[in-house]
């Protein structure tokens, strides 16, 4: 019935919309046909043709009224009216191109910023997994008292597979890791990113390989047996030119031969937000790759390195899965009290897992909030402009109301105008958003300084576009509704008498005033935020780092990649450092586990200082720790303030020693010399370590702008061997000139061992510590400047509007003897009061933002007074100019002209 109904009526409706003229012509022809017959009839009955025509028309009882009735019957009024409204809106906006352009740009700025930040948050949180039915894929995670996101061990993973009923399958993977890759055996390996996955990974996630096959479940049963690899699509194209014959070939991974069995589809760049693996290898091949050396990956229940995901069965409920896993976690605690004490488990949806796993999304949310603040300022600004525009059209609207237009019809007309504005603004805004995304993508290499394939996949996808356009529509309502509603409340009689009727009461002015106050406050807040960031960044730059970062070459090694055992690793590093120290052009060289501002986080140490009375609520203290060799302090230019640095004589079997930084020493021994004191590692009964020296405190990490007071403890390489180490070599010239000789030394020691992160240390430092934070500052600063521009425009608009509204009054005043200064004061005074109120509120909001940023981004406490001393006067000065310019125009009005105005 419904379908058949539309079969007949839809063509009619479409015709009424798109062939309107034709339909009208046909209507005229039809009625004319009728009238002609009627006239003929009249003439036949003896009337004159004129009388006959009159009689015919009378019988119709009003031809035009009937036509309207027929037009209503077409039921497309709402649409044709809307189209008419849009046409009218475009025409009337076209008459004021300057205002229109300004409004469009204002909205576009706000929406563009929102679009850019949306796409950031989208990439960080909302984009679904690139698999079929992504909503059914959940993350299983361990939990402890301190952490809500803990990996599982291989043993635990097997139990999860065997003892859960809610899933179609449970998959596991290790984090992406550096792998020494060589397409042909015997060529120099390069570092590529590989992921170890369970055998059912592709099958359960529903990934159909592009060519070849995914893993079989049995390829994940026997450790070390099935050396097979699935390539990522992008890697396959890059490395093999997209050659389909790659399936069946062998490649070298970490010195072992693997057979390529398939290529993942282009649509599957990996499950991680940032990492886009070059290839996948079965978990059972873990012995070839880096896992915790201290533990046995396949046996130890506490070797927890696996991310576990599962696909919910159709019909299975998340709550049931949660209960099931909770029961299982309790069983683990009972069965394995040592390995599982205090460990729970949780099932996370994609959204939950992304927000629990890391905190990057918080940056995105901060930026979205800031962008929305800009949009809000833009909208209030536009609303203000439309309000004054509507005012100047008071008479037009009064006429429309007088000749019978409904109020809702007028509101619709005015809303159509703001809709056109918002859509134009939205389109330009999307373009700005694209620009923003491009800009951010071009900074990717700064954000991710790594040899591995990592990137924030920011893009303007459909989700972002829809959200942006929805926002544009919302802004249309926000900008347009208030002015539209107010203008229909016009007093008809007054409206018809004068082009600008006095507003009824103070209420309307009150609204405008609130807008200006909000703008001033909002932009002041944004400016404060950006200044605050820039200031604390600058401060941290001025402080310096405490070590010399120039003329340093860094190269990272990881002998685990070629399966060295501890002894081989030790020998390799001994020979390496000896060779490098002898090389031409090397002044000094050292080995260190981490470099300051590097990408890897520092190791943590728990300890108890000997003879220290512990606070009742804790058993140990924590500090950052790093393994360095005896040349480190000299090479990095970190002075030893008291005691000594490490010596070659600090061997594995000699008494354990450590060097602490000054912050550490002052923290625990504020009144005595730390040298000679001992700490116990792990707890009160741990291994004793003697502090033999105190080094100057340096900065260790980027991310926090003021990390100058971090405790740090150095231990000698011989007593605390670590597999992955960074070679630092200081040269007198360009540090990169040392690369060939270092490469020769490494090749002589082991041609299969890749050199990673080979670069001048200063480059790393600049990227991590300078350019990265600067991106954030640029971003907020950009917003602050945009906000200021908007606020200025808003204030200018308000004063200019007041001037035009009170032109006649000004004329009268001047005719009665008011001086220009009086007029200036009159026009500016109100604006400046508003600025003052806005400033006070803005300062309050600035304090709030400062507290928020201190809590989320920086760790500096206190209030930065100078920021307000700069921002507030700047704000006041700029807004005064904005009010002065139109006010001066008022003061120059010739009284005779003003009195004749209108």
């Amino acid at each position, binding site marked *: 019935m419904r379908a058949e109904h539309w079969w007949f*009526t839809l063509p009619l409706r479409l015709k009424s919309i798109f062939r309107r003229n034709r339909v009208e012509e046909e209507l005229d022809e039809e009625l004319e*046909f*009728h009238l002609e017959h009627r006239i003929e009839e009249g003439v036949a009955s003896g009337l004159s043709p004129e009388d006959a025509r009159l009689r015919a028309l009378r019988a119709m009882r*009003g031809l035009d009224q*009937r036509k309207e009735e027929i037009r209503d*019957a077409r*039921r497309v009024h709402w649409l044709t009216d809307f189209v008419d409204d849009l046409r009218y809106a475009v025409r009337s906006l076209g008459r004021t191109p300057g205002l229109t352009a300004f409004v469009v740009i204002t909205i576009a700025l706000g929406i563009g910023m929102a679009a850019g930040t949306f796409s950031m948050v989208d990439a960080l949180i909302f984009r679904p997994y690139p698999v079929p039915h992504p909503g059914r894929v959940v993350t299983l995670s361990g939990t402890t008292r301190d952490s809500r996101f803990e990996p599982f061990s291989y043993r635990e993973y097997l139990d999860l597979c065997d003892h859960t009923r809610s899933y179609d399958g449970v998959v596991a993977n290790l984090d992406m890791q550096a792998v020494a890759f060589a397409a042909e055996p015997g060529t120099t390996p390069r570092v590529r990113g590989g992921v170890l996955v369970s055998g059912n990974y592709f099958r359960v996630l529903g990934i159909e390989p592009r060519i070849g096959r995914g893993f079989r479940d049995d390829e994940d049963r026997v450790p070390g047996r099935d050396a097979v690899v699935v390539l990522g699509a992008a890697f396959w194209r890059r490395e093999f030119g997209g050659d389909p014959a790659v399936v069946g070939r062998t490649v070298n991974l970490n010195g072992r031969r693997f057979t390529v069995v398939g290529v993942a589809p282009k649509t599957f760049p990996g499950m991680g937000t940032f990492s886009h693996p070059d290839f996948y290898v079965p978990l059972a091949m873990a012995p070839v790759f880096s896992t915790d050396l201290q533990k046995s990956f396949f046996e130890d229940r506490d070797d927890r390195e696996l991310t576990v995901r599962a696909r919910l069965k159709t019909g299975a409920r998340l709550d049931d899965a949660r209960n099931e896993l909770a029961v299982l976690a309790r069983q683990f605690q009972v069965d394995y009290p040592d390995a599982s004490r205090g460990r729970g488990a949780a099932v996370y949806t994609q959204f939950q897992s992304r927000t629990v796993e890391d905190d990057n999304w918080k940056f995105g949310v901060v930026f979205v909030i800031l962008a929305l603040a800009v949009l809000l300022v833009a909208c209030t600004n536009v609303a203000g402009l439309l309000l004054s525009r509507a005012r100047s059209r008071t008479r037009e609207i009064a006429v429309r109301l007088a000749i019978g237009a409904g109020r809702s019809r007028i509101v619709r007309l005015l809303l159509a105008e703001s809709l056109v504005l918002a859509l134009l603004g939205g389109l330009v805004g999307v373009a700005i958003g694209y620009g923003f995304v491009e800009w951010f993508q071009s900074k990717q290499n700064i954000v991710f300084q790594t040899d591995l394939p990592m990137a924030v996949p920011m893009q303007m996808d459909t989700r972002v576009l829809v959200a942006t356009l929805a926002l544009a529509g919302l802004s249309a309502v926000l900008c347009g509704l208030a002015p539209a509603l107010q203008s229909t409340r016009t007093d008809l009689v007054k409206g018809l008498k004068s082009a600008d009727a006095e507003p009824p009461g103070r209420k309307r002015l009150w609204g405008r005033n609130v807008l200006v106050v909000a703008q001033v406050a909002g932009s002041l807040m944004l400016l404060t935020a950006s200044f605050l960031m820039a200031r604390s960044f600058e401060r941290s730059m001025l402080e310096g780092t405490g070590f010399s970062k120039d003329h340093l070459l860094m190269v990272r090694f990881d002998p685990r990649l070629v399966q060295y055992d501890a002894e081989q690793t030790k020998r390799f590093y001994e020979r390496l450092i000896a060779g490098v120290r002898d090389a031409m052009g090397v002044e000094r060289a050292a080995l260190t586990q981490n470099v300051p501002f590097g990408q890897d986080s520092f190791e943590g140490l728990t300890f108890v200082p000997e003879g220290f009375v512990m606070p009742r609520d804790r058993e140990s203290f924590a500090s950052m720790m790093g393994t360095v060799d005896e040349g480190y302090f000299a090479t990095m230019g970190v002075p030893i303030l008291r005691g000594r640095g490490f010596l070659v004589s600090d061997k594995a079997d000699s008494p354990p020693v450590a060097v602490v930084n000054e912050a550490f020493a002052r923290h625990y021994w504020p009144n005595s010399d730390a040298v000679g004191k001992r700490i116990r590692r792990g707890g009160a009964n741990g291994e004793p370590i003697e502090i033999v020296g105190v080094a100057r405190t340096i900065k260790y990490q980027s991310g926090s702008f003021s990390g100058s007071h971090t405790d740090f403890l150095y231990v000698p390489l011989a007593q605390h061997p670590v597999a992955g180490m960074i070679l630092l070599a200081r040269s007198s010239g360009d540090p990169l000139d040392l690369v060939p000789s270092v490469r020769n030394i490494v090749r002589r020691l082991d041609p299969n061992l890749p050199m990673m992160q080979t670069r001048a240390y200063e480059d790393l430092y600049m990227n991590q510590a300078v350019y990265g934070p600067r991106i954030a500052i640029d971003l907020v600063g950009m917003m602050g400047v945009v906000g200021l521009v908007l606020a200025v425009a808003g204030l200018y608009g308000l004063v200019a509007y007041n001037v035009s509204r009170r032109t006649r009054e000004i004329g009268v005043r001047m005719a009665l003897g008011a001086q220009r200064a009086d007029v200036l004061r009159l026009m500016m005074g109100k604006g400046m009061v508003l600025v003052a109120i806005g400033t006070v509120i803005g300062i309050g909001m600035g304090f709030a933002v400062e507290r928020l940023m201190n809590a989320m981004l920086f760790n500096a406490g206190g209030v930065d007074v100078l920021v307000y001393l700069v921002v507030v006067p700047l704000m006041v000065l700029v807004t005064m100019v904005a009010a002065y310019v139109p006010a001066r125009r008022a003061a120059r009005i010739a009284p005779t002209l003003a009195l004749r105005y209108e």
Partner: protein
Amino acid sequence: MSKPSDLVQGTLDLLLLKILALEPMHGWAISLRLRSFSGDVLQVSEGSLYPALHKLEQEGWIKAEWKQTENNRRAKFYSLTRLGRRQLETEMANWQRLSAAITHVVQLSEA
């Protein structure tokens, strides 16, 4: 102004559907037919004829076609659709129920 009170609400639709069920015809012919059928009892204003026709067309009950008349003029001919036929049956049934009920009531009051 058209006078809906001239006819019982909705009966014009019924009349038009019924007339068009006989054969396709144009507006003028329908108005002649209405006049001749009902004599002077049913005063259908020509003013309400065309809005009613257009309404029926938009409901999908009748469809329109431009054709030549016998005098070789172009005219808009209306004809019943399948939906219209069904509608006619419904409305006729309704009308018969209604008129039977009214007749019944009228006779009651006379008795």
